[in-house]
């Protein structure tokens, strides 16, 4: 009789908690999905931004019930089982309180299923979305169609990009203390301190550094790739909307790390073409002073980390282009 009573009591506690939990979780999930979801960073400017925004929102749908579940339980326990209340029964020790096979097995099963599902979900997302805008290193394996061709062509002199051709646009991001510059191999390899991109285009960012590790973070584009010296770190995205975006360094790179940002623009394909052609000819004299377009460069003798032997000479056996060596003395 008494054991039946306690069973009933037990289900009562759990049923109450579950009811509160389901109601609160549903409300929180719905509120988040419809009210907050559309505003979740990084917005919808590119394909990667859009799917990363969806991924974040999707994870929140799982996170909120987990948070609320534990909080409801803790709150319920604090209110119901506080020793300060008069009618709290003495707890029961012994075997019944030490373990509960059902509770343990279901807890472990449920958490395992959720975790494995989320890992699978993330894997599908990262593969389908060509690396989700993250740096994939020099040999990306999830590249969009046409990317390898465009990347291979970029190193040759006949690299080209034209509007409405559905071509992938390779852009090189060169990070150094403490600024980003961008080279466009399909337009004679000119270098610009502005990042201008055409809309409706797959862009392949080739990120490298001349000194320490930086991280190229185009916030609204949802692209983030570390800039390592001597490494070409590739990331992809599809531009979908016109507008401005911010580029920040997100890997500590020394004194002015916090000031290492600039702004970029996504413009129409014809505007981009005009800008690129104009800049290419306007910068021709400067471009001649740059080393030929390459995926990585060795910094010149002023370079921060490398290139130096103790006697002050530049690395003699370097076979790659020395960045800045042809620049006129300033």
């Amino acid at each position: 009789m008494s054991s039946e009573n306690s069973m009933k009591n037990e289900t009562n506690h759990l049923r109450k908690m579950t009811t509160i939990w389901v109601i609160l979780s549903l409300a929180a999930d719905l509120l988040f999905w419809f009210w907050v979801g559309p505003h979740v960073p990084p917005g919808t400017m590119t394909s990667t931004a859009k799917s990363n925004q969806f991924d974040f929102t999707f994870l929140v749908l799982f996170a909120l019930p987990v948070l609320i579940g534990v909080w409801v339980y803790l709150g319920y326990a604090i209110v119901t089982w506080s020793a300060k209340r008069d009618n709290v029964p003495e707890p029961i020790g012994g075997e019944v309180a030490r373990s509960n096979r059902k509770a343990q097995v279901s807890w472990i099963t449920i958490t395992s299923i959720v975790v494995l599902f989320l890992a699978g979900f993330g894997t599908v997302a990262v593969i389908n979305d060509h690396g989700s805008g993250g740096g994939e290193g020099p040999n990306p394996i999830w590249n969009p169609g046409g990317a390898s061709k465009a990347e291979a062509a970029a190193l040759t002199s006949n690299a080209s990009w034209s509007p409405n051709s559905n071509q992938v646009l390779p852009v090189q991001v060169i990070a150094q203390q403490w600024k980003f510059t961008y080279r466009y191999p399909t337009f004679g390899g000119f270098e610009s301190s502005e990042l201008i991109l055409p809309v409706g285009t797959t862009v392949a960012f080739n990120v490298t550094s001349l000194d320490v590790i930086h991280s190229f973070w185009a916030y609204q584009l949802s692209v983030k790739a570390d800039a390592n010296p001597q490494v070409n770190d590739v990331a992809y995205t599809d531009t979908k909307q016109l507008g401005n975006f911010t580029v920040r360094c997100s890997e500590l790179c020394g004194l002015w790390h916090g000031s290492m940002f600039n702004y970029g623009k996504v413009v129409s394909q014809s505007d981009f073409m005009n800008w690129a052609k104009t800049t290419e000819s306007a910068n021709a004299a400067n471009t001649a002073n740059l080393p030929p377009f390459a995926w990585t460069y060795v910094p010149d003798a002023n370079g921060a980390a490398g290139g130096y032997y103790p006697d002050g000479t530049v690395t003699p056996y370097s076979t790659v282009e020395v960045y800045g060596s042809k620049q006129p003395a300033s």
Partner: protein
Amino acid sequence: MTISAERPTEVAASSVSPPAQSGGTSWTQRPGWLSQHAGTAIILAILGYLLGHWMGNAISGNYDYIANSGQNAIADTFGLSFGVLGWLLGIGALNYPLAKLVGKEAAHEETVEGWSKYFRYSLDHKVVGLQYVVGVLLFMFTGGLLAMAIRTELLSPTTHVFSPDTYIKIVSEHGTIMMMMATSIIVGPLGNYLVPLMIGARRMAFPRIEAFSFWIFVAGYGVIFSALPYGGFPTGWTGYAPLQTQAGPGMVSYLLGFAVIGMGMMAAGFNIAVTIINYRAPGMTWSRVPIFVWSILATAALLTLATPVLFAGGLFGLLDKTAQTAFYVTEHGGSSYLWQNLFWFFGHPEVYIMALPGFGIVGEIMPVFTRKPLFAYKVAAAGMIGVALLSFFVWQHHLFQSGINPDMRPLFMLTTELISIPTGFIYLVGMGTLYKAKIRFEVPMLFCMALFFNFLIGGVTGVFLSDVPVNVTVHGGFFVLSHFHYTIMGGLLFAFMAGLYFWLPKMTGKMMNKKLGLVHFWTMFVFFNLTFFPMFVIGLLGQPRRVFTYAKNLQGLNDFSSMMAFCLGLSFLIFFANLMWSMFISPVKAPANPWESLGLEWQTASPIPAHNFERIPVILTDPYHYSEVGAPALADFGDGGLVSSNSTTGSSPA
């Protein structure tokens, strides 16, 4: 006593330590100022530093690149290394190994009574534990002051309190100090003090190694602070490589500091693991070991296995800076990824070095205040071992956007998310223990409940970070900063506070003031959350970590976070006030077992005798038989009286 003779009696015979005073013929036993203590250690450390620095200059001062740069990393490395050696020599850590080295019988360390024993090379784990309490609090206080400085600078994106140079030094020192402190904050004070008491041992397995781990920890504090007079280092606590190679002499302090602290971590981990495995009292089977001891064992394993990688990585960096090797210099055939991999191969187990002892404390304290046995004990132990094992397989999630092999990313996303399964066990255990309990909300219990609240937010945001697509937005920003403050500060530090309020009465014989404790708890809990929760939003809105200036539309949130951080700082002052008040100004004598705990550590006499137990107890059951009718006795202390697990007072049998 017929029960459980699985542990031979020579344990009891051989564990009579610290060794008794021997004869007085030893050369180390000199009266007054000539004997070895912290003072002689400081003197020899300074002399050692000067000697080393001179040697370094003599050896390498005539190289052009050193003479031209005005910076001699070799002299700095030699100076600091010899300084540490002098420190160890001065404190007496080397007496024993040196004597053995020349074939002599080593003299016993002095056993000193009174407060001055805390400034000496003591072999008593209870002294070392209290030394560690003061040591980690000193670390925490300095690191906390630096945090206040960071938040002051971030009050405005345009008006600056510090120069960017000073700011980056502060950020780097704050991170490094806090990480070094956090590796030892529970293992050091509570692990050293409580493990022998909890497993029924009279001492640690290697008391000299234990004392060494503390005193080299203090030396590490000195080494990492020496970065400031050297001009600081600009790399943050992660010390990424080309920036590390580029940095000035302050970097030597960082690299050597981690190597020195690393020696202490390895020593502590090794000693504690051996102690737990070999020094358990008769009858203390693996299924009766307190859950805190399980957590410390898992942590000790991580300390022993992960730290050597950091140690080696740091030495490579030092060689790059001094001997012109090129481990991390890409242009000369090295790789900047090498440091990232070595560092995080240590760095991620390190994160669990900081989390596991917190879980152990919570598991130990909750049964006391719920008057219920620990729920699912085996699951809790399995969870800790599982976390410890998995923590070696997740490190590359720090490198998701770094350009590592892209096909590694799903793997590390999977392993990282898997680790939330054993972490979730701890929640099952906590929630199961609360079920139908009768909860007494004393200060330690409040801190435990707060850990469950905070760590949940830290853990759930960890799943966001491990998801590669979401990681693109949150990596390297304030989101991840907030995430690890929620796990380390919200988890570990709250657990440490719970542990201090809970065990200080046993350790010092004095109660912490409850009113001040409540004020401390509520201010710390509320202001911690108000400080760090906005940082998730700041990070999502695009603020990278370790920045000196930031976008002006984020000033409101940053200002709010800073204000709350100052209040959080005040909360720590309340804690220090409470500590001073309760320990020194107006001490109240603690009862032998103020929380009515069944733990073995509470069953020995109060104050704890020099050898912990008059006789090695024979353990009869686990210490969680709360509210159990007819519960078996916990242990046989060999003096004729069994301590009943069921007794509410649980006082000493003496």
